[in-house]
């Protein structure tokens, strides 16, 4: 089945590769015969997909069940304004086909799960993981270990990126680097913490570079080394990743795919949301009623100053979550307190903190200021 020659059209298209002895016709044929699966077509997946398509990787699989949102466009350059609302895999395919119609694109518009991961991954030679959550990170890693497929890994946060190659030959895997995920809430996601729009471009192309090198068998793969990139200081650093000493020769940790939501302490998405709202929760509409009734209560916004500058609820007093422990003295322990943030996560933590410090009447505004915008005041911009 493997192609043994390039068409004249391909020779023209890939000429800058063909005239380099490190690639040449032989290397271009390796690219043409390669099958690479991209998990996620977001920030990292966008540059990876575009450049691997351009480079002539013969078969590219895309796993994503998300749709394009306008807030994606600041960094996910594979999608455009006209694509808002479209399935990401469709929008990505359109861009890739425009860049290079000579390659095959396979779309998987599903969430990757323990039930389908092995079936999907086994069709590919290399996986590039650009997902945005810990359960999928561990799932992709474990499936790659079980199938013996290299996992070209990258992750990003604000101004910082990490990249490496896992599961290549007898090299380390994600669990050798991090045996366990953080408990939910302790490590913020890009949606909560933000990400510099160009960061996934730089880090994604490190990923794409490693994919190409693995296909060509060229150079030194980023294996056993964790590349750290800090955009602010414009520094690259490298740390050693060693294989778990108990796994020499064969992995002793991963036997089969497990329930990764449970492993990462994340409640099941398909599980019905708890219907009875906790008595310590309050909806934005109810908060609005309290304000309209001139009720005596304190509304605290625990977001950061720069978020407060984007939008705010007039009555709210800003005390960023990180400053709250030091500023408890500003608050009255007997007062009726309502706390809000962007989506409700940080305010829940703030409620716990206040209760642990002896505040008795503390409520969390569910859904944060985004829900306030949706249900009370649409003039408040959503970010």
């Amino acid at each position, binding site marked *: 089945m493997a192609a043994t020659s390039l068409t004249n059209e391909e020779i023209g298209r890939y000429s800058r590769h063909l005239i380099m002895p490190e690639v040449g016709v032989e290397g271009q044929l390796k690219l043409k015969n390669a099958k690479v699966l991209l998990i996620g077509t977001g920030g990292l997946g966008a540059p990876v997909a575009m450049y691997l398509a351009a480079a002539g990787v013969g078969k590219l699989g895309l796993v994503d069940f998300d749709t394009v949102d306008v807030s994606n466009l600041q960094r996910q350059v594979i999608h455009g304004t006209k694509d808002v609302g479209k399935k990401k895999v469709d929008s990505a395919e359109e861009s890739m086909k425009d860049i290079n119609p000579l390659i095959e694109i396979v779309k998987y518009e599903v969430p990757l799960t323990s039930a389908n991961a092995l079936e999907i991954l086994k069709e590919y030679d290399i996986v590039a993981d650009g997902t945005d959550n810990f359960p999928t*990170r561990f799932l992709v890693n474990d499936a790659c270990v079980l199938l013996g497929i290299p996992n070209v890994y990258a992750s990003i*946060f604000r101004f910082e990126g990490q990249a490496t190659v896992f599961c290549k030959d007898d090299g380390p895997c994600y669990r050798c680097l991090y045996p366990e995920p953080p408990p939910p809430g302790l*490590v913020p*996601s890009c949606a909560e913490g933000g990400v510099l729009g160009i960061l996934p471009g730089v880090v994604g192309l490190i990923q794409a570079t490693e994919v190409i090198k693995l296909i060509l068998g060229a150079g030194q793969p980023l294996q056993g080394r964790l590349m750290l990139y800090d955009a602010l200081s414009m520094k690259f650093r490298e740390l050693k990743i060693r294989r778990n000493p108990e796994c020499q020769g064969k992995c002793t940790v991963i036997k089969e795919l497990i329930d990764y939501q449970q492993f990462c302490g994340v409640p099941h998405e398909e599980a019905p949301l708890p219907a009875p709202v906790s008595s310590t929760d309050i909806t934005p509409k109810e908060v609005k009623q309290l304000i309209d009734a001139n009720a005596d209560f304190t509304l605290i916004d625990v977001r950061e100053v720069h978020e407060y500058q984007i939008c705010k609820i007039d009555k709210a007093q800003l005390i960023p979550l990180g400053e709250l422990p030091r500023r408890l003295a500003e608050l009255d322990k007997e007062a009726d307190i309502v706390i809000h943030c962007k989506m409700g996560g940080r305010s829940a933590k703030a409620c716990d903190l206040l209760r642990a410090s002896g505040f008795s009447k503390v409520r969390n505004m569910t859904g944060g200021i985004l829900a306030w915008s949706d249900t009370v005041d649409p003039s408040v911009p959503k970010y």
Partner: protein
Amino acid sequence: MPKILIPTPLRQFAEKKDSVEVDGSTVGEVLAALTAAYPDMKKNLFNDEGKLRSFVNVYVNDEDIRFLEKDKTAVAAADTISIVPSIAGGK
């Protein structure tokens, strides 16, 4: 004094600094000095039993302390200690 590099997610607990110099001759001492200076950092680095959390790695220069002598790993004044938590962002 050894220098500790603070990763982005933890800078909010260290007055937004990206590096801190603290006294200590072992990793354990250096991290204790760090959390003494910035108490909010403690729960992000250590679990309730006082052990380093398993999603936070610590390196002396480029070597993971799990493959050296863990918190007893010696550090010299010229060493750089990196705290590297796992991050999952990709979108």
